[in-house]
């Protein structure tokens, strides 16, 4: 049975491969100047047969795990990409196929540009450095694009964070010029071929990873949206070995190479009542500046973050309700519109993100409209001030996110306007009951003997 299924897949795969779409050339640009690996793959397509509707972009299983974000345009028009499906190559290697559906059937030639963002692709080597040493990173990839199509000619250009390249794998022709390395052009590469190369170069970019982010958005129909974000932040670059000397750190500010002194969050101008705290209270080191478009909140951790050091904190702010909440007349629902992730000046990698949208008690029919697929989604309940049945909470999780995910999402829900008065009525009733008990209590005589 299993074998039969396997065979069927194989046939299907073969059918796909024998489709008329062909690659005429591939140009890859890999940007390693930040802590991410940003691939811009330009694929020139040629269709000699009948109109094709899609193209399969394949990734090796290990690369697919590190893939954070993917978009593609066909001649400048954004395409729709279906979720990755695990397949096996004719040689039995596992890989993941992303089917790029063309906006219109393809006839003749066209340029397909795919943007892929990979996280955790740069490995500090050596893994530990001392306080004043430079950090070197290692990047490993294939000089060929892993593909289910034959590639007649292709080039790969890698942009590094610095021009100091310790070593590179020699797969001729290869050219190192300044901070960029070019592999290729290579010709006539068969399908599903890979040939690894490794680059070892200097990069003092901090590898900042948010191992866990919980972003909580609480709506109050009394006119407020509260946003609170809880961070587990880690510097995942080369670990600081040996001792930390404050003397050296203060004397030689440039010496401490990969240290993170602060991160800057970009907030909307209408954000107010900002706070920045952790388990042991307010963190007194933060600054806020404003330009005419946004507020810039400089979050300085209690201690400078060296490689391998961690910290935890939470911050939040309030905003007026109408900045984020709208009303949809045709469905009769309120719609919250807000970004999935906060925006930072620095490049951060979010390993695990949980977004919680808390709507007022009495709301129902919660519905998530996300710009991308989420990993998990469920409805929770929270009991807090003046609640009797609890507030519905829409929770969704997504792993491995980057700044490209800073996009708006919507949560729609039904809410009757009279439910707003639930809380004041509760308060009035309880005070009334309390005074009533007192009034009756003081007039009641519980003495056994009469006076």
């Amino acid at each position, binding site marked *: 049975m299993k074998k039969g299924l396997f065979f069927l897949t194989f046939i299907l795969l073969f059918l796909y491969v024998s489709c008329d779409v062909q690659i005429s050339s591939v140009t890859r640009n890999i940007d390693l100047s930040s802590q991410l690996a940003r691939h811009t793959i330009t694929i020139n397509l040629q269709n000699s047969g009948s109109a094709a509707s899609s193209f399969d972009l394949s990734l090796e299983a290990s690369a697919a795990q590190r893939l954070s974000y993917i978009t593609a345009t066909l001649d400048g028009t954004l395409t729709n990409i279906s979720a990755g499906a695990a397949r096996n190559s004719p040689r039995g290697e596992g890989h993941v196929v992303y089917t790029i559906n063309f906006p219109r059937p393809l006839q003749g030639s066209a340029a397909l540009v795919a943007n892929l963002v990979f996280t955790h692709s740069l490995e500090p080597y050596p893994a530990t450095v001392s306080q004043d040493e430079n950090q070197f990173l290692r990047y490993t990839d294939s000089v060929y694009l892993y593909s289910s199509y034959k590639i007649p000619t292709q080039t790969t250009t890698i942009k590094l964070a610095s021009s100091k390249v310790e070593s590179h794998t020699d797969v001729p022709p290869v050219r190192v010029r300044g901070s960029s390395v070019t592999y290729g052009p290579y010709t006539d590469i068969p399908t599903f071929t890979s040939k690894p190369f490794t680059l070892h170069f200097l990069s003092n970019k901090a590898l900042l990873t948010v191992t866990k982010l919980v972003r909580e958005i609480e709506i109050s129909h009394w006119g407020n949206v509260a946003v609170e974000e809880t961070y587990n932040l880690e510097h995942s670059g080369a670990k600081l070995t040996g001792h930390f000397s*404050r003397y050296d750190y203060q004397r030689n500010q440039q010496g401490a190479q990969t240290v993170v002194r602060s991160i800057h969050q970009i907030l909307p101008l209408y954000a107010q009542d900002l706070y920045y705290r952790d*388990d042991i209270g307010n963190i*007194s080191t933060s600054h806020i500046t404003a330009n005419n478009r946004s507020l810039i909140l400089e979050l300085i951790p209690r*201690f400078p973050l060296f490689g391998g050091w961690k910290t935890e904190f939470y911050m939040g702010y309030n905003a007026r309700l109408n900045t984020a909440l709208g009303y949809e007349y045709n469905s009769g629902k309120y719609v919250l519109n807000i970004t999935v992730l906060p925006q930072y000046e620095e490049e951060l990698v979010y390993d695990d993100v949980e977004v919680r949208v808390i709507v007022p008690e009495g709301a129902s029919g919660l519905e998530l409209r996300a710009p991308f697929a989420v990993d998990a989604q469920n409805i929770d309940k929270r*009991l807090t001030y003046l609640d009797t049945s609890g507030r519905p909470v829409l929770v969704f999780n997504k792993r491995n996110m980057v700044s490209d995910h800073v996009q708006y999402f919507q949560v729609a829900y039904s809410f009757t306007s009279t439910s707003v008065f639930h809380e004041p009525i509760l308060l009035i009733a309880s005070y009334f009951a309390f005074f009533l008990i007192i009034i009756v209590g003081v007039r009641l005589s519980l003495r056994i003997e009469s006076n």
Partner: protein
Amino acid sequence: MWTAALVHSVLHYFNITVAIRNVCVLLAPFFASNTAIATYLFTREVTDNGTGLVAAAMIAVAPGYISRSVAGSYDNEGIAIFALIFTFFTWVRALGTGSLFWSGLCSLAYFYMVSAWGGYIFIINLIPLHALVLLLSGRYSNRLYVSYCTFYVLGTILSMQIRFVGFQPVQSSEHMAALGVFGLLQIYVFVNWVRTLVPPQSFRIVFRTALIASVSALTVVGVLGTYLGYISPWTGRFYALLDPTYAKDHIPIIASVSEHQPTTWASFFFDLHALCFLFPAGLFFCFRKLTDLNIFVIIYGIMSVYFAGVMVRLMLVLAPIACVIGAIAISTTLRTYMKQIRRARPASNASASATANLSRPAAAKRAARVAQNSGKPIETTHEGQEQVGYVVVAGITLLLVFYILHCTWVTSEAYSSPSIVLAARGMDGGKIIFDDFREAYYWLRQNTAEDAKVMSWWDYGYQIAAMANRTILVDNNTWNNTHIAQVGKAMSAYEDVAYEVMRKLDVDYVLVLFGGLTGYSSDDINKFLWMVRIGGSCDSSIKEQDYYSKEGQYVVDGTASHKMLNCLMYKMCYYRFGKVFTEHGKPPGYDRVRNCEIGNKNVELEHLEEVYTTEHWLVRIYKVLPPMNRGTSPASTRA
């Protein structure tokens, strides 16, 4: 502590999701407001309604009490003072009414106090003392018998339920007074009962025999109990209370705490202000009109003045009663003089308006009636009596206004700023915040192994335990001080010896406070002599003399002794400090607290490694290195 947990769970039951930390922070102010109510009830019980109100108003702002009840002062004392005053309130209520119900409440309040604070000893000695004084002054009544016996029996049984107390109420010397008075009351009642049965002649014989028998029996039991170890001897702290100089000579750990120092006059005034002067006046008024309950106020007042004089910390116990006695003084004085003003007013009104219906004799008659109603003989009105009244009332008003101003000022200046975040004014007048303690603690919390053990001086024990969430060797519980002496020994020894001690104690990190860069004077170098003394109290090889310079002074500069310049504490504080320029025009390594250039600028650490130093160098953390694989250090050869 379980009070906070209880408040927290009750609030959460009603879906009021207040964080436990906020509950803890606001618990002390909440209980302070309860204390004000309890003080009102207590004073009203002893005197009257008006005095009660004055007392409550005074305790509400008294700095002596605010020092321990500001938001965030999450300490046993915060709750305990409320429990103390409430116990006393129920006691005077019970004594006044002779009601079993109130005596029962009194023992419950006492139970709460026992569970909250070790200072319950004060209650269990003060109430028996009151009973004894009443007995001796011939004020015995059945009310006293009922309330005291109920309180003692129930209270003792309840207090024995607390694990910390256990069997102490029947064994330790601190509790013996209460037991003694209990016994005495029984004997007294028994004797009275016998007196009604036997003729006077034989009664004297019976009385003498009974007295001698009971006294000798008590002595025998006492001596035997002490000898066999059933009755524990008095603890050092208790001696320290009775003899202020005892601690200085015998228990350095108690003497090292600033809270345990004898109180200065300045701090009496600082914490009590007007109450200092009102206190004797109030006592005078109490003596003038002695009642059973007044006597309690007098005893409590005098005892607490003595204790507050011995230890600064016990100012806390004095503050409430000072407010009560002060309130008695103020309200009695005011009442006297207000009466004079009131009495004079109808007369003057009448004289001013000749056309008024009220004729002169009628006014005088009315004044006389007022005087009669107040139960005093008709006094002849003197010329200018009204003016005197005005002056006194104005004076007291002024005093109270100044009291309020002083209290507000003291509270805002001395008691409101958190001690964990220091603030200073910079050169440009801007505020500089030194948040180094939390910086270091949070670093420990985030970047050390969860089971890491931190050695530091005991002052910061609770802070590290709570904020850094790491195991500590010694904390602010100083009941037993041998382990603190071990830390003192490690800090004051040469690095090799200290390393052995630290290895034995399984220490991973060492934390020291160093103020030499910023000028923060309560750092570890200034506390260091206490470490030497406390270390020396358990290990006689540590001698305080070794740490003084040849001139016999405690210094850190070049003239300091070799031992001082090379002990672990010195090394850890001044590691790499020798290169730092702290002040303009001064050489590097200039200590701004001790105002001198340090004596050992090339500190080398062999077994320790600097792992963290905070922004202003206030906290320095060192890691204890594992023993060398192969080497010549004494520790590694032994291991």
